């Protein structure tokens, strides 16, 4: 494996881990809130959160570019204020991956929170637990297998995010070429495919991606099975008025 292949794998790994770190807490909060929420207009939050999942990834990338790059008004303003500008790595790639990954995680987490006996947290409160303590000690542990499942899927999605990343890369890296140090695995793979000499490199990158996806799906399904088994065993059965 050549250096640029290893670089791409290392970059994708960094993007995936950073994305997971950034997306997991808001995904947990949103899923937990959305599972309970029946307030006026909760459907709007629901739609906005899940929207990036349904949008063409290129549109997500475009929106990020327009919103946050130095050319956009907001990006310019932020840049003036803090000195921060949107670059491809880490901010651009991680933001793009987060926008696509978080809705996916919410989608996986929400049914788990919805499946929790709705009296569990209130009952913990009658036993003296504050709402926060009840969430931390009861709700979150009950959803833990689903959290594992969502994180594994999120890792795979962040690793492989291509559409939005490609749009950002084409805008923020004016001359894409083989061996660019800021290429994630999918981008490197695409570049490699442009010349027949690099077919071996493309195959290797593809195989690594298959491996990552395989482990992620395996973990995710293990979490889901554990979660289902737990609820099958404890769900209240029998008639209750």
């Amino acid at each position, binding site marked *: 494996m050549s250096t640029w292949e290893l670089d791409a794998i290392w970059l994708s790994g960094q993007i995936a881990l950073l994305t997971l770190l950034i997306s997991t807490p808001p995904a947990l909060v949103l899923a937990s809130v959305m599972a309970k929420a029946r307030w006026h207009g909760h459907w709007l939050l629901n739609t906005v959160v899940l929207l990036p999942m349904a949008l063409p990834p290129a549109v997500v990338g475009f929106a990020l570019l327009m919103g946050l790059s130095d050319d956009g008004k907001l990006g310019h303003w932020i840049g003036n204020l803090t000195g921060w500008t949107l670059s491809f790595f880490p901010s651009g790639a991680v933001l793009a991956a987060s926008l696509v990954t978080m809705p996916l995680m919410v989608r996986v987490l929400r049914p788990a929170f919805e499946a929790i006996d709705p009296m569990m947290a209130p009952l913990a409160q*009658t*036993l*003296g637990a*504050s709402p926060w303590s009840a969430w931390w000690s*009861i709700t979150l542990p009950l959803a833990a297998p689903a959290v594992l499942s969502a994180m594994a899927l999120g890792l795979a999605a962040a690793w492989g995010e291509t559409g939005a990343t490609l749009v950002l890369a084409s805008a923020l890296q004016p001359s894409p070429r083989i061996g660019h140090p800021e290429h994630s695995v999918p981008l490197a793979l695409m570049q490699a495919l442009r010349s027949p000499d690099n077919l071996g490199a493309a195959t290797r990158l593809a195989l690594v991606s298959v491996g990552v996806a395989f482990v992620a799906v395996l973990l995710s399904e293990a979490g889901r099975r554990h979660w289902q088994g*737990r609820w099958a065993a404890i769900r209240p059965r*029998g008639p209750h*008025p």
Partner: protein
Amino acid sequence: MSNASKPPKALPLPLSVELRLQQPGLDIQAQFRVLPGRVCAIVGRGGSGKSALLKATAGLHPSLGGRVALGHQAIYDSTAGVNLPPHQRRLAWLDGHAHLFPHLSVQGNLEYGLARAPKPVNGPTFDAVTQWLDLRSLFKARPARLTPSQRFKVALGRALLSAPRAILLDDPLSGVPEHDQPPLLDLLAQVPTRSKLPVVLISPRMNEVIRMADDVIVLHEGRMTSGGTVPQILSDVSLSTFLEGVNAGSVIEGEVKRHDIEWLLSEVDVAGQRVTAPAVLHAVGRKVRLKIRAREISLHRDLLEGSSASNQLRGRITQIMLAGENGSYGAVGVELDHVRETGDFSIQPGVQIWALLTRRAIQEMDLAPGQPCVASFKAMSVAVSSWR
């Protein structure tokens, strides 16, 4: 000071509830008060708002107005703007689902509330509760592996250990198969005396109400239609018919007088008269409650000879009214004569029982208020219940 290290335990306070709340299609309004160590039962048909009322008391359901207080301390008061969250109200909740935390062991469940109780813990000790409920062998078990009876016991223990200030029971035995309920009801009936806390009980099973409750309130479509002591309310034939249909009857209090070992019968003193019932295990002198179904009582002008009805109680008709869905039959109220030990009797206001008769029978016997009569029923139609 030597007293400083051992602060006095806070005394249990009475729970008073006066609430208005709403459920889809139902306005609920009720008020009741429970003294420490006493039990108030809320009865009524399904959908009458009993559970919502109890949930609102615990702070688990929003209220529209009213006041909930322990002693003089309001935990909810709409006019004063007080609305404590559930964890500051500290009212223990127990319902038929037990709601054990599946990711914690039995011990973890039991310690959950104990760990969060204000220090110093003003409640029973861990050892006392687990020994009483016989939970020691289950400490390491996961809730999913427990039987329904064990789940109930763990949930009861967890509730008691959280050092609550009152106990709210929403049909707590409904998750347990019927044949496993009696021993658990025995345990549950000890809770008010052991904990000395006010207890509120919702139960569709009248045997639980008769066994545990001191007072009863009746909720019908969200409104409190009546309230009073158990014998008062459960012997009111119109309420009783409403609640129990064909099982309607009278609940009267008495004292065990004698056991007949040869025939396996027990005699209970009611207003100085003797009621014979199938043998019970309660000791002589023990106060018990008798439930006699109104449709199993017949009325006679005089004492009967050669009858299988071993119970013949003298009394006087107080009122006659129509009963049943369409007034298809009559209910006759009979106030029992209070018989003194010496044999002579005098009429005192007191124990009343009801007989359901056909309108024809009432007509043919020419029954009218004020007439003396004899109410007879078989020993087999008496259900004796201990009373806590």
